[in-house]
């Protein structure tokens, strides 16, 4: 039996719904008879076309939040959206704001959240998949409580595909007054410049880890990424060390990437790194330690010194012009 209705929380950027939001709409379409969406920000109505194309019939517009952090007002609005909609499940993208909204809503409704979901099945009701131990095992779980099931789903768990539906009907669903919980306010925004393809969209990702030896050597990673028309990534160790901004981080707490080629330079392959990149089609690893866990997922592993192999690779690619 198909699930009656699923509500998808759609996150927007200036260019429309995020990739993960479209992935969730696509997955919901395959599971439920009716898919509805909810979103916030100044551009909700403008996104109704795209959101409809990916399968939602109704779009609840929570509206512009001004400077408020989204967690509290969006969760507040979702309480009434869910009761109007009657959806039995709510899908939320794993993101900074997505997790805040899920946490707030969970406490408001007194229902649990199923987090780090990477797969959804209809197995006599919605059932979830969660990778554990670096993705070597998959836990299957089910929400057994009463009320709506809240699912926070990782990026790239599904492939987004439009279905060609009409624009979703926009229904206003303003956030209620938040009281004390809603007093956190954004006073300024800072955007870090990045060039080239985005980390989670690039066909080639070149990542560096502590094995590079120093922040200066990260220039090699940038050079390689440029030569391969890819994006530059990093392990958490060098993000924590301040070599590169957090936006470069690949892994459990960073980005999930699934490029055609992932090239890991001086990265050990800790479980938290592996979960973010082991879905890549091809993995190349350079590490001086033959025993490094990264080799267990590598299609091509070079046991060698990054100080030698990486500059040589840059030269070889440059000489091809």
């Amino acid at each position, binding site marked *: 039996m198909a699930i009656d209705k699923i509500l998808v929380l759609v996150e927007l950027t200036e260019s429309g719904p995020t990739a993960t939001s479209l992935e969730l709409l696509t997955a919901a379409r395959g599971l439920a008879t009716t898919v509805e969406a909810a979103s916030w920000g100044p551009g909700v109505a403008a996104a109704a076309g795209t959101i409809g194309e990916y399968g939602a019939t109704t779009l609840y517009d929570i509206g512009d939040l001004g400077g408020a*952090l989204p967690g*509290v007002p969006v969760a507040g609005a979702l309480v009434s959206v869910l009761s109007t909609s009657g959806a039995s499940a709510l899908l939320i993208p794993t993101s*900074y704001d997505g997790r805040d909204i*899920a*946490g*707030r809503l*969970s*406490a*408001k409704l007194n*229902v*649990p959240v199923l*987090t780090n979901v990477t797969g959804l099945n209809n197995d006599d009701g919605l059932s979830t998949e969660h990778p554990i*131990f670096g993705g*070597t095992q*998959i*836990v*299957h*779980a089910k*929400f*057994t*409580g009463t009320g709506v099931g809240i699912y926070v789903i990782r990026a790239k768990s599904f492939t987004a595909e439009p279905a060609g539906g009409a624009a979703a009907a926009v229904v206003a669903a303003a956030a209620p007054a938040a*009281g*004390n*919980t*809603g*007093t*956190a*306010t*954004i006073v300024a*925004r*800072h955007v870090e410049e990045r060039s080239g393809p985005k980390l989670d969209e690039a066909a080639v990702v070149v990542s560096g880890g502590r094995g590079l030896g120093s922040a200066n050597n990260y220039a090699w990673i940038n050079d390689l990424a440029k030569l391969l028309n890819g994006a530059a990534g990093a392990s*958490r160790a060098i*993000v*924590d*060390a*301040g070599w590169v*901004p*957090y936006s470069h981080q690949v892994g459990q*707490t960073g980005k999930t990437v699934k490029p*055609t*080629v992932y*090239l890991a330079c001086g990265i050990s392959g800790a479980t938290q790194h592996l979960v973010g990149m*082991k879905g890549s089609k091809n993995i190349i690893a350079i590490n001086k330690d*033959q025993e490094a866990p990264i080799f*267990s*997922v*590598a*299609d*091509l*592993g*070079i*046991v060698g*010194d990054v100080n*030698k*192999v990486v500059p*040589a*690779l840059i030269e*070889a*690619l440059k000489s*091809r012009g």
Partner: protein
Amino acid sequence: MLAMNVVVCVKQIPDPAAPQSLEASTNTLNRTGKLIMDDSDAYGVEMALQLVDKAGGGEVTLVSMAANGEVSGLRTALAMGAAKAILVSDDALKGSDALGTAKVLAAAIKRTQFDLILAATESSDGYTGTTPVQLAELLDLPSITFAKSVTIDGSTVKVDRQTEAGYDEVTSPLPAVVTVTAGVVEPRYPSFKGIMAAKSKPVDQVTVADLGLSPSDIGAAGSGQTITKVVDAEARASGEIVVDEGDGAQRIVTFLEGLKLI
């Protein structure tokens, strides 16, 4: 502010460096043995100590929930300089999910005075990343997650919050819940003196009954979810691992050519 009282949530977890296993009956992580302080919480403890220092008064109180009554992880944080700890332990807590944990932590935190609650963005073993926000909602407090820096200005907390695009400057009145990312501060190593002093610092051990919580809210019963099965993930086909003999770069070029990427 002349005195800052900071509560830090400290999770005690099985050593991530040791092999991990699931309990056969429940398929939940085996948390029965020795537990250590989650590395992710060392940043919150350090941040709290620095904020109290800057304020020139107040103290750091640790709050932890661990079904098996483990205190070793708390002793580590006490050795770093925290003044005291509240530990909630009870067999009934086994199998608690994030919301259940938040209910327990909220009830425990209500027993103490605080201006600020710090936690990590996510734990190393559970990594739901929702507990602190659920806690904030239960305590009717504002929250700011993913802090890259935290400063106190009078009765306001100012945070640089990590975002997809860069970071936002966010402010909130105190009291509030803030989660800190790894790397925000450099956690200190406990000194010998600190380790000795930690042995006699107060750890208030409380049970579920002490907190007046209903058994249906906590433990496996309160978790509202069940694990139906655990299966092995599809393994990646093993690749070609070669020792670089000066030909490593050329092998990578050939591999990329094979994929028509160059």
